[in-house]
């Protein structure tokens, strides 16, 4: 509840601030985004309650007014807890996606689809296995810092990292929180 209230306040502030900015771009902008993300919990029955992962990502691509397309590249590292505590290299994910900005560009919704590549030798599969990557961000907040620089917060994403789809599937369902800095070139 506290989180929801905070999110609404931030959203209103963000939208207000963003709305106040002149919407001068009438052509194509080329934003580049650097991101850090983190997820902690899973919600799947018969699974560990923990789905600890963290990582970094970059997005870049053209944006027309309130719509854009982008390429998404990320490295998602995973926390192993079952036999020992360890950080494994997880997966490298490559995707393309689309985004829509609204509320004066203070709020963003995006969806990316692509490939997930296993980046380490897991219990049953070797590095290099290629599967599916889906990243859906229903509501993210953007806070303009300067004319060309924005700070973004995606409080809750639904991300499926599935580098192994054959045999015993390796599917990580992550509920991430992501923060990013975006520069408009």
């Amino acid at each position, binding site marked *: 509840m506290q989180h929801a209230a905070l999110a609404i306040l931030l959203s209103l502030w963000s939208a207000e601030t963003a709305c106040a900015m002149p919407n001068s771009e009438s052509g194509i902008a080329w934003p580049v985004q650097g991101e850090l993300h983190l997820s902690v919990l899973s919600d799947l029955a*018969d699974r560990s*309650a*923990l789905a600890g992962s963290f990582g970094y990502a970059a997005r870049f691509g053209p944006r027309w007014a309130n719509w854009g397309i982008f390429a998404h590249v990320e490295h998602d590292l995973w926390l192993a807890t079952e036999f*020992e*505590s360890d950080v494994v290299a997880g997966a490298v994910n490559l995707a393309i996606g689309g985004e829509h900005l609204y509320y004066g560009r203070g709020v963003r919704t995006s969806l990316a689809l692509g490939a997930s590549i296993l980046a380490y030798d897991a219990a*049953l599969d070797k590095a290099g296995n290629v599967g599916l990557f889906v990243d859906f961000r229903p509501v993210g907040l953007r806070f303009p810092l300067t004319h060309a620089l924005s700070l973004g917060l995606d409080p809750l994403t639904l991300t499926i990292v599935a580098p192994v789809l054959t045999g015993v599937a390796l599917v990580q369902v992550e509920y991430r929180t992501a923060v990013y800095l975006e520069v408009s070139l």
Partner: protein
Amino acid sequence: MIGHPFGGLLVMAVALSPASALAYSTASAFREGCHETIVSGALLKHDAWPAGTPELPEGQRVRDLAEYLLDTYGIDGRSLDDTRRFVWMSLIVGVRDPDGEGYSVADLEHARAHRLDPRDETQHAHALRASVDDGPEGDANALEGVRQALRAELQAVARAYAHAPREQNESVFIYLDFYGRVSIPVWGPAFRLGRALHVLQDSFSHCIRSDEYELRRVVAVLNLVDPTFGDYDETRDGLPHSRSLDDCSQSEELQRAAMAATVDLLSLSAALRRGQASEEISSFFGRWLQLQPSCSRTNGFCGNERWVELATQDTAANPVSCQLTLAGRRRPPNGLWGWLLLAAAMARAPKFRARRRTWPRE
């Protein structure tokens, strides 16, 4: 000994979990792998391999999994052929099985159901007093329950051996990081032996043993279920479960004794394979699971105060307080602690898996 405890994540799990789940623990994999250490030591240091030779399952997957587990436990498996690796893996999966039953150690829903199962047979299978094991006869009754639990597991070993070699493999569930519950083939006799070893080894962490008998006899059986559910009186219910005894690194002496008992039990496998182990089992119980009677607080547990002192250094009224420094405090009002603790846990985590360790360690 695998990894190091990842207590931060466990604390995080509880910090983020509903308040009602504060009384549940996910236990063993967040701690030192005592069972696995002792089993691996018995096999690799004492060459106490179970009798018989399994038929290896077809395909590469089980070999990859054995390799992964050897690496995870930091064991140099280069001297082990595929058959030995399969036997080792089956024993390790078996000795872990009574605690997890193929579920994640961080599966709080399963932990709630399993770790606090108050049934008498469940308590005895972990070498603990059942709620009915009260009064002066409580230790004797509990130990008889432990013997019955161990005998049942050993009978399962004999049944597994009775199959034709190609039918001795069975499928069991194991929980693998990121994959979830996975069905894998194991060699039935070794898997069942692993489960039996769990009962035996728990009798070193959940019992006070006698110095007079070189830790071969039991002085007192600890109690988890009564302290957990609140109706606990030491005079009636015995000593409470001990977190400090659960940590096998607390006493090398106790660990050596558990190793000797493990080697001894593994040596029964030849008789179990023949299907003529009844006398050997009884003899084994006489060597390792016999009660030294009339020991209580009034006589310093027959001169075993040092073990009682170790046991009571860190008693646990319930499995969560076994694990958590947060136990007994009010949980933070939201999930913020979880995020902070994740950062702390990540800071404590060792570097990437590229690291390899060797085992046994000196």
